[in-house]
């Protein structure tokens, strides 16, 4: 657990440092996630094993399983935003519902169509004039 936290917080710190040094418009933790994913990918390539190291995995999965708890402090800040929500409830409700439905549909339809389209490069006998 301490070494897993060290890896996670270390990647976050490097992410924040890179963000400050290069003025990336990307949040530091996201850069940290990208770094860790690359490191794990390289490691998987070298060892031929996709599983994350047992040093890291239980802590990472424990944090992810309880991710909901971590949103509560920031979410409570919504109490301070009650005025905005009362004033703009219509655009807020319509936009959340509309964009969620559209995005679900578009993602699933594109995925569905592209998975069903046969690979034209594969050596099938479709072109045979028999």
């Amino acid at each position, binding site marked *: 657990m301490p070494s897993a936290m060290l890896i996670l917080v270390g*990647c976050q710190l490097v992410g924040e440092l890179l963000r400050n040094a290069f003025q990336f418009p990307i949040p530091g933790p996201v850069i940290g996630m*990208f770094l860790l994913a690359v490191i794990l990918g390289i490691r998987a390539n070298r060892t031929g094993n996709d599983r994350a190291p047992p040093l890291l995995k239980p802590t990472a*999965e424990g944090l992810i399983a309880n991710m909901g708890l971590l949103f*509560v402090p920031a*979410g*409570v800040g919504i109490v301070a935003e009650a005025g905005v929500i009362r004033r703009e409830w219509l655009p807020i409700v319509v936009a959340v519902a509309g964009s*969620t439905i559209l995005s*679900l549909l578009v993602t699933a339809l594109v995925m569905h169509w592209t*998975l069903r389209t046969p690979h034209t490069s594969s050596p099938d006998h479709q072109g045979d004039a028999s």
Partner: protein
Amino acid sequence: MSATIRHLWTPLSTTPLLWLVVTLAAYAGGRWMQRACGGSPFASPVLIAILIVGTIMVSTGTSYDTYFAGAQFIHFLLGPVTVALAVPLAENFALVRRHISSIGLALLAGSLTSVISGVGIVWLLGGSRSVALSMAPKAVTTPIAMAVSHQIGGVPALTASLAILGGILAAIIGRHMLARFQIDDWRAHGLAAGVAGSGIAAAQVAAIDEIGAAFAALGIGLNGLLTALLVPLLAALWR
């Protein structure tokens, strides 16, 4: 009686420990209620906890700053959990390689649809700029959504609530709506849940199908990365 309570409450209400305990207890209560409702996505532990803590704060006249002095210890873990999302992402790299063009196209189309339609609807219905910016990253997993919202000048607390509401909606309607469009492939269901509804919708798919769960994890991780790259760029153009 009330004097005794005030006597106990007044020194307690300013210690960070009290609000740490309240937050943990409210979330544990939310988890318990969701289990009691058979795991229904309506009974989101996060929403329940926010409602409980919010009610206690308002009824005791506590300021958000006082609350946050205690809750910041939980809030801090948002950074490490974002980094931890690399673990499921990396474990599914093989899936990405196998379906790289399908996943890439679907991810780009779904992500752009979510950002543009979210911002566009707010703008069309006369919403303010800060609400539109808070809406832009709401489809991605909440820690990333909040970080991006903060980055581009949205309201992170509003984005967190929108992300949770969108996730609940996607979890409730996703499966039936996609079935109506003749989409029966769990790879498509999973990716769509991850891209459009992040963790809450993904959990709903993951409970049904293992392949769907892997694609949902991919959708969450890849859309988090893509949105974190795309939305600040789009926001910089929209001035």
